[in-house]
């Protein structure tokens, strides 16, 4: 069994195998408690699955984006996220429940909100196919920067490059390649035009 510090580190690495190992442990260690809580508070088995999965995704996102403290207790943190998500659902559905909102219930704070989009814009759907099939160093740089939020100095170290300047250059070569593939697409052009128009109005 890995410690919390090790699990956090595994989720921040660019290695799917490590990620899956960490998720597996988090899953098996935390499902029983979350299940008990939700089922005892007007929830169904389906609710348990949805809330628990949303909670893990929020946890992973926060670990990668917010550089959470290494002294964090993952179990307590995940429980808090799932509890708040569940209470949020109950509030939104306006169900009658035999549950008093206890003093420990908090409004979801910013660090507990999932920052990933649920639906892509049309122009982004074009990028979806492109980025799903990107391979090699571009894929590596994009994942390290855009998903794992690594600074270019860190990426240089990970990929064995001399310095961040080299990585920045490589990144812009990869971005140029993507731009060339989308810039003539009418849907992407339309989305970009709308975005630029909104910017000038704000």
């Amino acid at each position, binding site marked *: 069994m890995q410690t919390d510090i090790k699990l956090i580190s595994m989720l921040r690495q660019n290695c799917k195998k490590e990620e899956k190992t960490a*998720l597996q442990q988090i899953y098996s260690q935390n499902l029983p408690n979350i299940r008990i809580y939700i089922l005892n508070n007007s929830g169904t088995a389906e609710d348990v699955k949805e809330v628990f*999965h949303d909670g893990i995704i929020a946890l992973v996102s926060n670990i990668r984006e917010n550089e959470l403290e290494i002294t964090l207790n993952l179990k307590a943190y995940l429980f808090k996220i799932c509890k708040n998500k569940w209470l949020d659902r109950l509030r939104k559905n306006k169900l009658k429940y035999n549950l008093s909102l206890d003093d420990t219930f908090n409004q979801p704070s910013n660090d507990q909100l999932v920052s990933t989009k649920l639906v892509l814009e049309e122009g982004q759907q074009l990028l979806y196919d492109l*980025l*799903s099939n990107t391979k090699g160093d571009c894929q590596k740089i994009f994942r390290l920067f855009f*998903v794992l939020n690594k600074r270019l100095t860190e990426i240089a170290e990970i990929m064995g490059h001399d310095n961040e300047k080299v990585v920045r250059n*490589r990144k812009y*070569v990869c971005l*140029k390649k993507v731009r060339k593939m*989308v810039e003539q697409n009418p849907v992407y052009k339309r989305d970009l035009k709308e975005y*630029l128009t909104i910017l000038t109005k704000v």
Partner: protein
Amino acid sequence: MKNLELSDKLLIEKYLLNQLTAKEQSVFQQKLKKEHTFAEAFKLQLDIQQTMKYIETQEIRQYLEELYAKETTKEPTDKQTENPQENKSDTAKHNIRNLSPLLKYAAAIVLLIGVSLLYFFSGETSKTTDQLIAEHFSIPELNFTIRGENGNTDEAIKAYKNGEFEKVVQLTKQSQDNPQLHLALGISQLQIGQTDQAIQTFEILQSNDQYDDQATWYLAICYLKRKDKENAKTQLRMLSDGTVKSTVGWKDKANQLLKQL
């Protein structure tokens, strides 16, 4: 689209990594409203970030579904089948321990001979970086299409054609705009042993659409000159996998050199 200044690139990076100071936030917002090139460049990266995170979330969700299926259909472990496996493993260990000492020494000698042969043959067949450079690099003839911009330009072109590379480096600045001269400068720097400067020159040229393939190739040669095979391979792979679109057989040259590295 015009290339961004370094300061703009840094601003976008910091925004996406959530590292802008309050002052930088203000500068960022102003640029977003007023500079189209900046806004377009930012939007592309924002779209890529959001799309990649979406892909990542989907992949994680899929894996969580698999875990859920396993958790909810867990079977009890079959303890009866464990012992035969343990017994097999014990026997194997027992056998190994009883292996004759003479056989152990024989195995060690064979291993030693094998490693020596490998070392000997790998030393003979793999080429040094100098040999690879000699095989794959030659000074290209450049057909300059620029003329009479200033005295230095003409002089630099003449010097290049005459193989006076020191003079080319003296007459040409890294900050100048013309990509042909830039290429000539990089090759000259490489030729006279100013490898670090050559790397910087080619890195700048790599952002030019017409010359990025050549710049990438010569960057690989520069890294070989520094005996840095890993970085050389990285550059060559960009040509090989199409990250940098290439013309005139640069991809083939890259593939050939990659095989030898």
